[in-house]
């Protein structure tokens, strides 16, 4: 029997921020604990939660901690106290917290573990070595399951003494904890570890690979956000968007047909086919579908017709988040005001924090909330232009260290600059769609840079090289860009406007955007929107200040006669503003 035989993962989690420990433990339990311990508590508690293990019950689980370096910060803190304060005043607390097996203490104490424990410090091979004993203990029946954690922290001095004569494979260069609940029962995912050193990175990779796309909390959050959005779209409970109700509460007094339709569509997001009648049933269907299919359908907003589901596979979503994660180093938390079923809300509010091992919180998109208190150093604020504009209009100043990512609609450079000027550490605009997911990112005043997973399909012409389509390198996804994009070198491009989308009027292609431009060209018109309504176009215009609607309308109807017969709007109405969604995208009226 080999030492490296099969072992299976019942649940796992990665934590790279200790903040999440607050979700699982009382503040008094975390008092005086350092980041290294909190990281491990976060990952371990989440792992047990994902496995449905009741932490209050005493259980015969083994605990094995693998750490290449151990509690190096506390070890240095103790030596600092010896050097700075003298032996007589050296810190006993730092010494107690610096022992190699310090994590065992708090993990067993706070997770109520009472089985066998071990700490392994085998440098870059700690994870692989610990797995040998994990398997050995399980084979011997020493414990029912094993919670195996790979945890490390770094100290600034390490970077200073890690010169060229130490190969990178030996160095721990990042902090985090990955925990696995291991069993020999083969109805779980097998754990395979690559030989590549250092194996703390292999542990992180394994944790990411084996973490389900959705956990129960994700499904509830997505469900609630989707139901809120659907109720608002149907002009029922519009203000629910700003509330914190769960699926059951939101649907409590909604009529049967509407409820069933919403729940059916909700199940469809996860690829579920059954027709649930209650929120509980819908969540059950969603959980089952999520576990079985491991896909997610991003639903188009419906701003230009009926919403359409766009299926994204687990592989694509993982590839996307792996690339996006590289753009957002050193984050400690995701704070999102974008619904979690939305492509960007999912990416930045669920998938990215899970990938990075950082906590995620969601707030309603209300600029009036106390955002100075809700945001902290290391946060990623996931938002959209209209919300951010309102935040700026309110005179808001960011606390230090907050990164802002904006998506869902084009963000003017002026707003990106304003966000920077108001203290945002970094401001990034994400370009993408429900069909594609994230495509590219840019900072204020800069071009968009295509994510590496996309290949650009370009066409050269008088106006330069246009980005026509993008093709996902590792899948069949082939997306035509909805906007006019001009390549500006390498994989960078700029957006110059939306492509005209043809619609059919009496069998002929007409272009609402062309008609909009035509109407905007009139001296009485400030802005215009045109769409297909039945078999004809209709137009909504916003008049320039001082123009009178009763007098302007006959003038504009006459003006429109210059268009081709198929282009002439059958109706022209006047509005104070153009209708947009809550995220600032054009909306039907």
């Amino acid at each position, binding site marked *: 029997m080999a030492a490296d035989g099969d072992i299976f993962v019942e649940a796992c989690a990665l934590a790279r921020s200790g903040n999440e420990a607050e979700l699982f433990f009382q503040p008094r339990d975390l008092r005086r604990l350092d980041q290294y311990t909190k990281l491990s508590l976060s990952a371990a508690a989440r792992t047990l939660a994902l496995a449905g293990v009741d932490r209050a019950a005493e259980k015969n689980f083994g605990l094995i901690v693998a750490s290449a370096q151990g509690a190096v910060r506390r070890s240095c803190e103790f030596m600092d106290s010896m050097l700075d304060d003298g032996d*007589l005043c050296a810190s006993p607390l730092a010494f107690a917290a610096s022992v190699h097996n310090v994590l065992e203490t708090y993990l067993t104490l706070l997770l109520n573990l009472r089985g066998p424990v071990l700490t392994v*410090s085998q440098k870059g091979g700690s994870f692989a070595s610990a797995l040998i004993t994990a398997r050995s203990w399980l084979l011997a029946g020493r414990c029912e399951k094993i919670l195996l954690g790979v945890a490390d922290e770094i100290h600034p001095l390490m970077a200073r003494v890690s010169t060229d004569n130490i190969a990178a494979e030996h160095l721990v260069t990042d902090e985090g904890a990955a925990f696995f609940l291991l069993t020999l029962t083969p109805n779980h995912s097998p754990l395979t570890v690559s030989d590549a050193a250092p194996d703390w990175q292999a542990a992180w990779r394994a944790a990411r690979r084996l973490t389900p796309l959705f956990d129960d909390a994700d499904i509830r959050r997505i469900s609630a956000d989707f139901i809120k959005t659907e109720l608002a779209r149907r002009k029922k409970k519009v203000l629910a968007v700003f509330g914190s109700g769960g699926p059951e509460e939101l649907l409590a007094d909604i009529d049967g047909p509407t409820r069933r339709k919403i729940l059916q569509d909700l199940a469809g997001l996860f690829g579920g086919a059954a027709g649930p009648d209650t929120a509980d049933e819908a969540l059950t269907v969603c959980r089952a579908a999520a576990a079985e299919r491991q896909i997610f359908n991003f639903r188009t907003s419906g701003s230009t017709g009926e919403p359409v589901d766009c299926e994204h596979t687990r592989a694509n979503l993982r590839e996307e988040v792996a690339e996006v994660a590289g753009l957002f180093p050193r984050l400690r938390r995701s704070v999102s005001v974008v619904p979690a079923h939305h492509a960007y809300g999912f990416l930045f509010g669920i998938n990215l924090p899970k990938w990075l091992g950082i906590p995620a919180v969601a707030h309603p998109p209300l600029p009036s909330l106390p955002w100075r208190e809700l945001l902290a150093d290391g946060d990623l604020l996931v938002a959209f232009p209209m919300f951010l504009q309102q935040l700026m209009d309110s005179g808001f100043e960011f606390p230090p260290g907050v990164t802002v990512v904006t998506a869902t609609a084009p963000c003017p450079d002026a707003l990106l600059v304003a966000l920077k000027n108001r203290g945002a550490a970094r401001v990034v605009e994400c370009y993408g769609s429900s069909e594609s997911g994230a495509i590219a990112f840019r900072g204020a005043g800069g071009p968009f840079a295509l994510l590496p997973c996309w290949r650009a399909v370009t066409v050269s012409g008088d106006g330069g090289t246009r980005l026509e389509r993008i093709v996902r390198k590792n899948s069949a996804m082939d997306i035509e860009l909805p906007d006019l994009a001009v390549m500006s070198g390498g994989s960078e491009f700029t957006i110059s406007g939306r492509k005209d989308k043809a619609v059919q009027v009496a069998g002929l292609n007409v272009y609402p955007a062309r008609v909009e431009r035509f109407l905007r060209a009139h001296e009485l018109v400030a802005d215009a929107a045109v769409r297909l309504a039945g078999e004809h176009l209709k137009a909504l215009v916003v008049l320039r200040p001082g123009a009178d609607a009763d007098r302007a309308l006959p003038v504009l109807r006459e003006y429109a006669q210059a268009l081709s017969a198929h282009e002439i709007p059958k109706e022209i109405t006047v509005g104070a503003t153009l209708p947009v969604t809550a995220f600032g995208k054009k909306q039907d009226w």
Partner: protein
Amino acid sequence: MNLVVGGYGSVSAAGANTAELGEALFGGRPVRPSLPVTRMNSVYAEKYPIFQAPDSVLAQLRAADDESLSLLYARLAVDEALTMASLSAADLRGLRLGVCLGSSTEASAFSFDFYRQARTGEATSNAPFRRFVTESISDQVLAHYNWRGISQTVTTACAAGTDAVGVGAEWIANGFCDAVIAGGTDHLDLVPYTGFIRLMIADPRPCRPFSKDRRGVTLGEGAGILLLLSPSAAEQLGTPPRGYVLGYGNACDGYHATAPEPGGRGLRKAVAAALSQAGVNASDLAFVNAHGTGTADNDAAEAAVCRELLAGVPVCATKSYTGHALAAAGALEAVISLLALERGEIPKVNFFGEPDEWLMVTPALENQPVAADKTAALSNSLGLGGCNAALVLAGKEHDGR
């Protein structure tokens, strides 16, 4: 579990090898800790003694090769174990081999001296850090003997040596290995020395386990190594058993960072698991080699378990000869247990004052013979953080079933 101990070796303050250790334990050769502690540049060096490795051992350090004291102690003990088994390092190269060692000081990223120099930019070389990140002590042992195999460095503080023997034995029992070099090695430097004093669990006098006037530990250093073989590997090598590992138990307290659970909750489970795996009853035990650090809390928790699970079993407490060798302690005590079983004699405790009526456990105050019908012994370890481990060992007279 029924693993053959083909040989064992040790380095400690009580002897440069196991023969010398035996003279101290059974021959009456006196052993005292060193005071002042000339190796430590500390304000405490005049007050708190340590049991340090003999000068004859320290003189063998290959300083030019950047060898650490932990590696020195380990290789001397491995050499002794191989010699006892009449084997060479080459004899093990054809086997599926494992090295499983307990360690603490050698598993620290920065030695105190290097850290002091590095933080002010005065370090002229990063060699100590490079060695730390590139090779664990168990890998250093593999490399020293030009062996290939699986390796593990166990860092469960003061229980690491016992854990390493139990873990390594189970690797063989589960068919992962034919032979395992198991044990622990540790050396003293200023960090643990100062740390234990600042935790106020170090005794200015030599440690007195289970004594009413006990005040804490006296730190020690050294290595204990067991050459573990599967019965078939022992037969193949022609190595006669010098003892057996029959059982291993491990359980945590889940109680406190530095204090053991007062009732010995974790140790109780560890002992029960070790006895169960060994198929041995407490009444079959010749003696229990207690962890016996000499701290008030540790001895009280261990005494609770001795009273309730091991009533009537003689207790020995040998840290009064070796000091508390931290991650090597459990392995050293496993070696001492095997040596005592082989000699049929239980060593008396050193420096003992008077029995503590609250403990109701008194270690052997004089050397005493092992009962003729008892061939197994229990060796306990309790580590900081509430990790507990126990081994059931048997002498070579054990019938090997």
